[in-house]
């Protein structure tokens, strides 16, 4: 009964589609029906219809953020003197780590400040939009079986991927236009503003191409998005290493697609040619995606699925064992990614010291080489903790998925109480996140030890402490999301991601935006002492942990009182 609604809905949307596809192909001529692209226009119309809200929000959201970033700087910094003061934010090694190569910061202008500090985040959003959109219309459609329904019509083999890519191209171009318009509206130079927009399109299409490839590789849409997302993360990490090493970017910056987009140096050099490798790779990826798609069946992946065990291990028969099996895959993926990131971050420590030593006099007065490194390490612990919390929110959305897909209903039909069901999942999740914090701390320490040798030893335990110290805000985020899961399950995931996105923005720009104190307080990650620069301050640690514990208890109560959602 549950599935029947879905089926009817799909049928009604595809019937006119089939007719239109058939009509389109006869109009073009008999040859068109044999084309691998037959049906592309009809599919594109279907995708536009399905995505009219979702994609409009993405495009407008990124566009508005562009307008906001371009305009806000001139409000925050009223004159050039103030601007020059603020450039330390982006020009010092930690700033470059976060934002980019910091071109032209020796002679800062508003437009250079905008290009240095903010455009990278517009590019990343364009990349995420492109990845999610491509995967949503390709692998996700195959996973649900809707692709089968589509492909049974007069639809060419490459029509779906082509339509999805055209859709993304359209969205990316609109994003590019809005971003350029935002910069132009702020009165910035035309050439640079156009270049920023073009770079957004190029980055978007690079990752759209990457998603077109990963959609062929993975059997699940989650897996396809995760693979393309991992590539984006890697691009960011590599760029971090390069950009931190020297102003204008080091060698590593040239190994990252995000690095290429920033090497255009808008408003400084206005180079267009670094966009060429982006476009070239995008074309290559798309070609690879098409080619791979001819090597597999609909709904299959290129990675063959293996047989599992005929009998379960004894551990699977307990609530904890069940929760572990459900959450294991996600936790494992996040841990591997974060530990590798931590190792990499740790190994950047040396170039941080070198870069700090090379800073001009006025900076050196503020940061000595050593305190600069401690600040860097504190920042890293915070940065990684936000991602550990993201792993937690992702685990909780999985829990919500268990309920939405009807699996929680089946689990709860056994003599397992609701409290045990939720407690088992939370226990696995919290243990996993704790381990993740410990391992990322150790990873950073290990990376630092590898490059600093003896000098690094003194910081090793500080680093583990700094990482574990972040357990409090991670717990607080989890508590808030669990409380919502108990009472307002629809909001749980959204609020979780918003909290983290807000924390990421505030951590990087908070002090720059001159926001009222309330706004700063809303950043869950903004309350702890900066270990190892400062010692541990227990008050905020305990308050945040308390919020987490209370949230979890509230969530338990709500979950026991509310109805289990029908799938």
């Amino acid at each position, binding site marked *: *009964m*549950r*599935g*029947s609604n879905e089926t009817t809905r799909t049928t009604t949307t595809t019937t006119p589609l089939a007719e239109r596809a058939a009509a389109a192909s006869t109009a073009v001529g008999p040859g068109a029906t044999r084309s691998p692209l037959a049906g592309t226009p009809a599919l594109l119309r279907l995708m536009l219809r399905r995505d009219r809200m979702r994609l409009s929000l993405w495009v407008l959201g990124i566009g508005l953020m562009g307008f906001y970033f371009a305009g806000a700087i001139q409000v925050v910094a009223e004159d050039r003197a103030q601007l020059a003061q603020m450039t330390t934010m982006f020009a010092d090694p930690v700033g470059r780590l976060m934002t980019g190569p910091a071109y032209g910061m020796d002679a800062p202008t508003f437009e250079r400040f905008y290009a240095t500090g903010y455009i990278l985040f517009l590019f990343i959003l364009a990349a995420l939009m492109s990845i999610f959109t491509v995967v949503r219309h390709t692998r996700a459609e195959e996973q649900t079986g809707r692709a089968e329904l589509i492909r049974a019509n007069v639809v060419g083999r490459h029509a779906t991927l082509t339509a999805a890519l055209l859709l993304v191209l359209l969205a990316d171009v609109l994003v590019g236009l809005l971003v350029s318009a935002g910069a132009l509206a702020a009165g910035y130079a035309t050439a640079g503003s156009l270049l920023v927009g073009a770079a957004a399109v190029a980055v978007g299409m690079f990752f759209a191409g990457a998603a077109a490839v990963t959609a062929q590789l993975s*059997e*699940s849409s989650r897996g396809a998005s995760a693979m393309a997302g991992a590539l984006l993360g890697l691009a960011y990490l590599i760029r971090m290493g390069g950009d931190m090493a020297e102003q204008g970017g080091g060698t590593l910056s040239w190994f990252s697609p995000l690095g290429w987009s920033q090497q255009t140096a808008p408003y400084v050099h206005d180079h267009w040619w670094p966009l060429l490798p982006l476009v070239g790779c995008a074309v290559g990826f798309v070609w690879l995606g098409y080619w791979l798609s001819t090597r597999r069946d609909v709904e299959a992946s290129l990675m063959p*699925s*293996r*047989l*599992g*065990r*005929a*009998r*379960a291990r004894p551990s*699977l*028969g*307990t*609530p904890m*064992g*069940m929760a572990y*099996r*459900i959450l294991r*895959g996600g936790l494992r993926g996040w841990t591997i990614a974060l530990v590798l990131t931590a190792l990499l971050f740790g190994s950047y420590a040396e170039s941080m010291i070198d870069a700090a030593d090379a800073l001009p006099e006025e900076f050196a007065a503020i940061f000595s080489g050593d305190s600069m490194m401690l600040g860097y390490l504190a920042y890293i612990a915070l940065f990684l903790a936000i991602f550990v919390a993201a792993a937690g929110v992702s685990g909780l959305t999985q829990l919500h998925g268990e309920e939405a*897909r*009807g*699996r929680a*209903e*089946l*689990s*709860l*039909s*056994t*003599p*397992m*109480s*609701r409290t045990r069901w939720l407690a088992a999942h939370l226990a696995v999740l919290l243990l996993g996140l704790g381990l993740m914090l410990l391992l990322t701390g150790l990873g950073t320490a290990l990376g630092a030890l590898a490059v600093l040798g003896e000098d690094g030893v003194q910081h090793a335990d500080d680093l583990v402490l700094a990482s574990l110290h972040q357990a409090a805000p991670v717990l607080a985020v989890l508590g808030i999301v669990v409380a919502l899961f108990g009472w307002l399950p629809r909001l749980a995931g959204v609020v979780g991601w918003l909290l983290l996105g807000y924390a990421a923005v505030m951590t990087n720009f908070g002090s720059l935006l001159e926001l009222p104190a309330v706004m700063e307080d809303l950043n869950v990650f903004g309350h702890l002492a900066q270990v190892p620069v400062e010692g541990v301050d227990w008050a905020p640690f305990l308050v945040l942990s308390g919020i987490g514990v209370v949230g979890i208890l509230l969530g338990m109560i709500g979950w026991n009182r509310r*109805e*289990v959602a*029908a*799938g």
Partner: protein
Amino acid sequence: MSETPVIRARGVGKTFGPVTALDGLDLDLAPGEVHGFLGPNGAGKSTTMRILLGLLRRDAGEVSVFGGDPWHDAVALHRRLAYVPGDVELWPTLSGGEVIDMFLRLRGSHDPRRRDELIERFALDPRKKTRTYSKGNRQKVALIAALAADVDLLLLDEPTAGLDPLMEVVFQDVIAEEQREGRSVLLSSHILAQVEALSDRLSIIRDGTIVESGSLSELRHMTRTTVEVETTEPAESLAGLQGVHDLRRDGERTILEVDGDRVDDLMRQLAPLGVRSLVAHPPTLEQLLMRHYGDDRGGRTDDRAAERTVS
């Protein structure tokens, strides 16, 4: 235990916002009884099941399962029952065998030989990841996990919707065995013939209300069989028989409807007429509902349209 009814529901109501799912539902299931719970899609069968499981809260009325309240005593009650949902969703990365074992252990005691036997009888490959299973195979996993468990009550929500005819026969055999062992079964379906073959008693639900409930013989008046027959002698005379309705001719054939308890009579009268061919089919649920309770859903009067909406 024989004193307490397994399920007793009185005047149960449930609304989802503006939609009324259950409207004064009554239901009784005695120990050891197989009870057919029959109704068209959307009549409230699954909502009833989910209230019996304590996943949903009733808005009105009384419900008891083994004498307990399904919402408050869920865990204790779940030790004695197993459930198979109508649309089985499993964890894609677990194998079928792992899911079966997991549920059997979560449910408490079970017989491992029964598990292996059922896997074999339902022809399930327990090593395959559930991601690769069809709807029918996912349903088999949930069925085996329920049937091999040591429980007193089985709640089966359209359990055979995805099974092929061969597997449906296996299912019917297994349910018959369960019944001999004294288990109670609440079996929901929208196909009359299926529950008729298995059930001691039937309840028919429509728009959230039980419209008819009783043993099969009590409901015999509802099972009017359609007979299409070609005879060498004219068959008009049959119209006068007790229990024969709507006799009409269609070319060579005579089409009539006969009450379930009059079939034997009709056959005796038919034999001397020289039967060349004979087709008899049981009524569909929708035919029954329309015949007895009218059609308030916008002028669907011909039977074929009705059958389409049920299938």
